[in-house]
C-alpha cells in the first residue's frame, strides 16, 4: 500500500471517530452501529474466506458464542459505569479463538465444498446447543443482559466508538496479512494448497491461525451485539443468515481486498435496514433479493473493487500504449493489492 493508501485509511478513521460528535441523530448512529458490526465481521471473514479461499459458512456460530459469553458473564450483574462489558471484549475474543482452533484443525482437513458444509454443520450444532442446554443459555426463552446506564442523549456513542476501534484492528490485521509472509502464504494456500505445501509453506499452521483470529473478532462483535440488544435468543444469536450476509458483503465489495468487505457492509447493511423501514413488507422482497444476489454473482463475480481496479488499470494501460514516453503510468496505486485479488491470478 502506498503512502496515499495510509493517508486514506487515516482520514477514514478520523472521520469515523469525529462523526458522532457532530450531533448526528440517534437513528443515524444506531444505523452506523449495525453497519460497523457487519464491516468488522466481513473483514474478519475475508481473512479466511477471501485470502485463504476457505469459504466458511460457520462464522455465525462464533458470533453466537461471543453473544452468549457476554450474556453469561453479565446476566443478572449490576453495571456501575456501563463500560465493564467492553473491557471484557478481549477475553471474549480469546474464547472465540480458543474454540475456533480445534474446529479449524478438524474442518480444514477438507477443501472448499466440504469445508463449507462442515462449518455450516458446526453452526447448526451450536444452535442446537443454545436451544438445548437450558440451564446455561435459557433455551428458547433467551437470556437478558443488563441495560447500559448511558444517558439517553448519547446512548449509542460508546458502542459506536468501541466498534470503530475494532474495525481498525480488523483492517490493520488485513493490511498486515497482505504485506507479510503470512499473507503470501494464505494466497499460496488459496491458489494451490498442495503446491504451497510442496514449496515449504507451513500450510496448516497459517490457515488455522487465520481462522482463529477471524472467529475471535467475530465473537467480539457478537459480544457487543448482545450488550446493545440487551436480550438474546438462539434463533438470532446463532443465525445462519449472519454468515450469508457477511459472505455476500465480502463478495460484493471484493474478496481479498482491504476495503472491499467494508464497502460491501456499508452498501448492504445500510441499504437493508433503511429499505425494510421505508418500504414496509412484501413477499416480493425475497424474489427481488434473490435476483439482485444472482445478478451480483453473475455480473460482478469478483466484487466491485477488483472490477473497478481492473477497469482503471486497463484504461491506464491503454493510455500508456498511446503515450509510451510517460514513465510509470501503468503502475497502479496499490499494485500489491491487485496481485492479491483473485482476479490478479487470471
Amino acid at each position, binding site marked *: 500500500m502506498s503512502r496515499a493508501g495510509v493517508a486514506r485509511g487515516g482520514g477514514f478513521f478520523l472521520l469515523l471517530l469525529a462523526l458522532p460528535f457532530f450531533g448526528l441523530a440517534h437513528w443515524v448512529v444506531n444505523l452506523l452501529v449495525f453497519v460497523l458490526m457487519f464491516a468488522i465481521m466481513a473483514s474478519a471473514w475475508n481473512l479466511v474466506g477471501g485470502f485463504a479461499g476457505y469459504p466458511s459458512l460457520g462464522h455465525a456460530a462464533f458470533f453466537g458464542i461471543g453473544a452468549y459469553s457476554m450474556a453469561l458473564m453479565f446476566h443478572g450483574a449490576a453495571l456501575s459505569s456501563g463500560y465493564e462489558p467492553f473491557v471484557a471484549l478481549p477475553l471474549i475474543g480469546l474464547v472465540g479463538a480458543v474454540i475456533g482452533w480445534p474446529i479449524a484443525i478438524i474442518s480444514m482437513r477438507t477443501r472448499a465444498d*466440504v469445508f463449507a*458444509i462442515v462449518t455450516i454443520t458446526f453452526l447448526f450444532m451450536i444452535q*442446537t446447543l443454545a436451544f438445548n442446554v437450558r440451564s446455561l443459555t435459557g433455551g428458547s426463552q433467551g437470556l437478558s443482559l443488563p441495560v447500559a446506564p448511558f444517558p439517553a442523549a448519547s446512548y449509542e456513542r460508546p458502542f459506536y466508538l468501541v466498534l470503530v476501534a475494532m474495525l481498525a484492528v480488523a483492517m490493520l490485521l488485513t493490511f498486515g496479512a497482505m504485506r507479510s509472509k503470512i499473507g503470501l502464504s494464505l494466497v499460496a494456500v488459496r491458489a494451490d494448497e498442495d503446491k504451497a505445501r510442496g514449496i515449504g509453506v507451513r500450510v496448516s499452521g497459517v490457515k488455522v491461525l487465520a481462522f482463529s483470529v477471524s472467529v475471535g473478532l467475530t465473537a467480539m462483535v457478537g459480544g457487543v451485539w448482545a450488550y446493545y440488544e440487551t436480550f438474546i435468543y438462539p434463533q438470532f444469536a446463532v443465525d445462519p443468515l449472519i454468515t450469508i450476509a457477511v459472505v455476500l458483503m465480502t463478495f460484493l465489495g471484493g474478496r481479498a481486498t482491504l476495503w472491499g468487505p467494508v464497502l460491501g457492509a456499508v452498501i448492504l447493511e445500510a441499504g437493508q435496514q433503511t429499505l425494510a423501514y421505508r418500504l414496509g413488507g412484501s413477499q*416480493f422482497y*425475497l424474489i427481488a433479493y434473490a435476483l439482485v444476489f444472482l445478478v451480483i*454473482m453473475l455480473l460482478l*463475480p469478483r466484487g466491485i473493487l477488483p472490477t473497478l481496479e481492473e477497469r482503471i488499470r486497463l484504461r491506464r494501460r491503454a493510455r500508456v500504449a498511446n503515450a509510451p514516453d510517460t514513465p510509470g503510468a501503468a503502475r497502479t496505486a496499490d499494485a500489491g493489492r491487485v496481485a492479491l485479488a483473485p482476479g490478479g491470478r487470471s
Partner: protein
Amino acid sequence: MHALVQGVILGVLTGGVYALMASGQTLIFGIMKVVNLAQGAMVIMGAYLAYQLFVSFGLDPFLAIPITTVVMFGLGVAVQLLFLRPLRRDDKSELSLLVTFAVALLLEGIMSVTWSTTYRSINTSYANSSWTVLGYQITAVRVWAFALSLLALGLLFLLLNRTRFGRAVRATVQNPESARLLGIESDRVAALGFGLGAATAAAAGSVYGLLYPFYSGSHYDLISRLLSIVVLGGLGSVGGAVVAGVIVATSSAVVAATVSPAWSEMTFFAVLILVLLVRPQGLFGTVGRGAI
C-alpha cells in the same frame, strides 16, 4: 425396547424418503461439482405442486408425481443453463454455493407469494390410517412413502446403468476430461443432470407433503439434513447417499424415541463430524474422483 424398535421402524421408513432427496443432490454434485443448496427448496416446490394438484383436482399426490417431476425437470434444466453455466471455472465451487443459495431464496420467494407463509398439509383420506403389527404402530402413509421412494430410486438406478444418458453421466462423474474426449457434451449432461436432480426432488416432495406439514421456509431444515447425508455418504455417490440417508434417519429417530426429540437433530451433525474425523471423504466417497 419397544420405543427403540418403534424408532427403528420409523427411521427406516423415513430414511427412504431422505435417500431419494439426497440421491438427487449427490448426483448433481457428482456431475457438476456443485453443492446444490436449492435442493431443499426444490423438494418443497414439489410438495406445493402436489398440494395444488390435490386441492384443485383432487389428484392423489402419488399419482401427481409424473406431472410434478416433468415440471421440476424443466425448472432444473433452466437453473443450470441460466445461472450455473455462466460461472467462471476457477471460482466455480465457491460461487456455485452462493448461486444455488440465491436460487433457493428465489424459489422460496415465489412460493411465499403464491401460497403465502402458512403451513399446508395434504390431507388424503388415508392420512390417519395405521396398522398395528406385533404391538408396533405402523402408519399407512409412511409405508406407501417408503415403497414409492424405493421405486423412484430403482428407476434412477436403471436410468444411470441401462441408458446412454446414464453412461454419459457416469463417465462425466468419473473423469470429466476423458468424457469430453469421448465426445460427451458436458454442458448437455450437466443440464440434464441438474434436471434429473430436480425431478427426484419433485418425487420426494410429493411424499414429503404427505408426511409433514410444510411452508415456503421449510427448506432450511431440509437442506441442513441433506447436506449431512450427502457428505456422510460421500459427495457424488448415489449409493452412499441412500445408505447414509437410512443411517442418519434411523439414528435420529432412535435418539428421538429413546433420549429426547430435542437431541435428534444433533445426531445428524454428530454422526457427520465423527465420520469426517475418521474418513474426510465420507463413507463411500473416493478422493479426487467421483463415484456412483
